[in-house]
């Protein structure tokens, strides 16, 4: 079991009951980012289609960070997630809202 914290941007909080921080238990040790996200979708399924395309890829203008490292440069959805990690889902700078 690994416990992670997801930081949810304002645009997606209507899909997470208005919550900006979500503590999620991932049912295995040393999970990948993809497995941690699966645990998030299990609780809040609406978030999945906003973050991933139907092919399971992170959308091109969405960034997912494990700690302060963008998963784009650390192995994508295979990025290892340590216990206690903070995972931030953020819209890329290609757009931008002050409240995200």
């Amino acid at each position, binding site marked *: 079991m690994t416990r992670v914290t997801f930081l949810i941007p304002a*645009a*997606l909080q*209507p*899909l997470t009951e208005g919550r900006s921080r979500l503590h999620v238990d991932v049912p295995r040790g040393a999970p990948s980012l993809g497995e941690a996200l699966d645990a998030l979708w299990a609780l809040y*399924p*609406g978030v*999945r*289609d*906003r*973050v991933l*395309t*139907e*092919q*399971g*890829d992170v*959308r091109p*203008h*969405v960034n997912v960070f494990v700690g302060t490292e963008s998963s784009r440069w650390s192995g994508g959805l295979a990025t290892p997630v340590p216990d206690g990690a903070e995972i931030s889902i953020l*819209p*890329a700078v*290609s*757009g931008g*809202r002050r409240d995200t």
Partner: protein
Amino acid sequence: MVTTRAITVKGGDVVLLVGTLKGAFLLRAPATRATWEVGGPYLAGRAVYALAHDGRAGRARIWASAASMHWGAVLVSTDDWGRTWTDPQEANVKFPVESGLALKQIWQITPGRAAEPDTLYCGVEPAALFRSTDGGRTWNALSGLLDHPHRPRWTPGGGGLCLHTIVLDPVRASRIWVGVSTGGVYRTDDGGRTWKARNVGIRAEFLPEKYPEFGQCVHKVVHHAERPATLFLQNHWGLYRSDDAGDSWQDVAHGVPSDFGFPMAIHPREPDTVYVLPLESDTFRCPPGAKLRVYRTRNGGRSWQPQSRGLPQQGAYETILRDAMATDTLDPVGVYFATRNGKLFASRDGGSSWRLAVEGLPPVVCVRAVVVDRASRQR
């Protein structure tokens, strides 16, 4: 925080559905169409490339494609003229995983025929046609087009590889035409199972073979419900007419200053009256001479006459995109178009005279006109 202005719609009103790159607007006028009240922005911050009104089976429903650069595109709807919108948790238009494709944009929404009130179609990018038979709750890509042998050789136009035009035959329920940029016109006669390219006579200026089987960059196709086998087509260079359901096309660019343009609209009662908005070229997409003129034919394309009264005749560096022109169903007919510079022009005499109805909108990509049923009440 974006403030949205609501409108109250009454039976007999005309409502323009206006999609922009930053949300949707509803413009309401009484039947005189003298003054326009602006509601919106709805879906603020999202690009609304497609809007459609569904008045079948007693509905007063507006469908919109709402696309976020970040979070993807979904179809949403309102039954109360924009006061509340559906917000689907799961994306409702998705390619099957085995296709290897991912939705980029929803370009067109077309309610099905009156006899099939729970059927809707949408055209998307990458080019595909989706159909819903349960009132828009679930959508499936039509495999005949998804798996078409031409697909690997379709190439994206300037707007992307999109299926942007859907024309339903009101008589032959199994016949549909679609427009793909750049693939050309395709027609099914078996309800979507098989599709044939229907581009004979349409020129592809940008290819070494000028009249290929497919690969043309069609911009818009219209027809009249009373004469469905006669089609008019605005091409990426070229104005065409077909009298055999698209089996062959004839050039009808007689008297227009340029046969390049995007939108095309047809009169609701006169099958030979068609409107286009010529642009200088595919590299300078502004009206020739910076004079904004609608060209109208009343004889099915044998001749086109410029309509400029009330439109700016100097310095009009405006671009009008493929879905940004529409007609209403009143008599005399209202004709409307809007520009990437956020100006909406309206005619209430069939296109003979115009005035600037609204300006200051975000870049407009879609205009649709609805005459509200007299029995309708604001819900």
